[in-house]
């Protein structure tokens, strides 16, 4: 009883009052903005493109250290989320290794989670999730026969042309699948950010999962409002996925 407060257990039909409150709540707009920026920057731009770049390097022959690279990326993906959050909270802290690595570039040491919290969680999420895109694109690139590239090279295609006219059309469908999955996963990220700074000072990193958790499980336990926000987000996410699926059908070879 103490956990949820007595409001939640005595039902009363209030119509759309919670939803009306939601669309007039600046905090909710903040969380919407953060969630989508977070997904766009860390997943769609960060993870997908870094994963593709790594997969293309892994495909090159005669390069030493490829397995070390893929193992490092893979490790970041599989370590338990709580541990990842704990590690990153320290790593990005004032005395953390991040500051030591950045110091040769003339960047003053600072506590990144306080001074640039949103940028930090974006980078942390790129670190965390790139492995999936890497594995996916490695598999796709392996399925493209090498002789196509050799033929193109004989015909005088430049590196960029080879990517634009051979690789890209062949991976377009995989790219869509990758986008769908990493969008869903990134919008559902909770644990790592929560452990790193619990939504930030104020609400600097309050992505929607943390928004819902804070409203529902911290005083004053506004469970019904949190549920309304959760439902709303679920519908939005569902619509985005429908759009993606339409696109994916279009580019399927």
């Amino acid at each position: 009883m103490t956990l949820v407060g007595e409001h939640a257990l005595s039902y009363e039909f209030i119509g759309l009052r919670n939803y009306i409150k939601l669309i007039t709540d600046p905090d909710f707009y903040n969380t919407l903005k953060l969630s989508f920026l977070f997904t766009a920057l860390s997943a769609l731009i960060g993870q997908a493109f870094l994963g593709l770049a790594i997969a293309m390097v892994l495909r090159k022959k005669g390069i030493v250290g490829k397995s070390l690279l893929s193992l490092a990326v893979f490790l970041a993906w599989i370590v338990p989320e709580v541990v990842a959050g704990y590690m990153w909270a320290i790593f990005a802290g004032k005395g953390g290794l991040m500051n030591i690595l950045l110091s040769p570039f003339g960047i003053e040491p600072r506590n990144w989670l306080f001074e640039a919290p949103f940028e930090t969680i974006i980078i942390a999420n790129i670190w965390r999730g790139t492995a999936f895109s890497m594995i996916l694109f490695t598999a796709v690139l392996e399925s493209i026969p090498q002789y196509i590239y050799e033929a193109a090279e004989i015909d005088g295609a430049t590196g960029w042309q080879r990517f634009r006219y051979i690789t890209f059309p062949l991976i377009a469908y995989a790219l869509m699948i990758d986008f769908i999955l990493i969008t869903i996963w990134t919008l559902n990220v909770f644990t790592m950010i929560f452990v790193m700074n619990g939504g930030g000072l104020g609400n600097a990193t309050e992505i929607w999962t943390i928004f819902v958790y804070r409203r529902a499980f911290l005083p004053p336990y506004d469970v019904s409002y949190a549920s309304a926000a959760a439902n709303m987000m679920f519908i939005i996410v569902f619509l985005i996925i429908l759009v993606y699926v339409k696109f994916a059908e279009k580019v399927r070879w």
Partner: protein
Amino acid sequence: MLKALKKEGEVKEKTKEIMLRKYLSYAIIYLFMSVLIVFFLSPFTWLVLSAFDPKASPNFRIPETYTIKWFVMLFEPISAYFRVRPIDWIINSIIISTSVATLVTLLSVMSAYPLTRFQFKGQKAILNIFVTLRLLPLVVVVIPIVLIFVKIGLMNTYLGLILVMTTMTLPFGLLIAEGYFRALPKEYEEAAMVDGLSRWEAFLYITLRLALPGITTIWLLSFVTAWGEFLLPLVILRRPSLYPASVGIYYWFGVYGRVEYGRISAFSIVYSIPVILVFLFTRRYLTRGVAGLVTR
């Protein structure tokens, strides 16, 4: 004569240029790779170093002496007031994850078998419902679950936690099991039934035996999913002595006052090892699963 010499010079020049460009591209690739390796490995370094550092603190440093006292101290209570031993959290995690993994494996094998061996109405719908359930964000589900649990008295119990975690992991287990059973030829089973085994015996001695690698994978992957689960135990369990290791780390690091970084790092390492081992063992299977999404 002169022409030929000139041509030779041109060819040499051209080869030189091509070689130079090749070296340059190699240099760029190696630079890119080393930056990435540093980026992906550096967050781990502090975790590993501080677990062996007698004077561990959030400040990064290379310890002068090394110790295993933090690992030994996992068997001692966290403090005089907070009598929970970190190792108890690991034991809790083992109890929860083993139960969840076993239940998920049993249920997904038992439901995947009829789904692949019989034809009945609504077969596809069942699978689709499961896939959709998998897409549902946990945060959306967690609030109603807590409300229901408060009403029926399952809050703060392992029974409740294990039931929810099983439900949330089951779709994933079922999808793997369904794919695996579909790929197993029916003929072995039918041959065994012609030879006089009952369907149940044929399932038990033939199909299960053949599906053993798949079943092991389901068990291992559900185990690590449950092992890493954080949100559900966080909201369902309220007593620190009941926490699994994931919530334990958060509670110890984020909520509880006096922080012993060395001991938390040691604990995090012990907690991560099973997950890392399972994934390294199932890495090839995972890669093949991901490849199956996009190649035919």
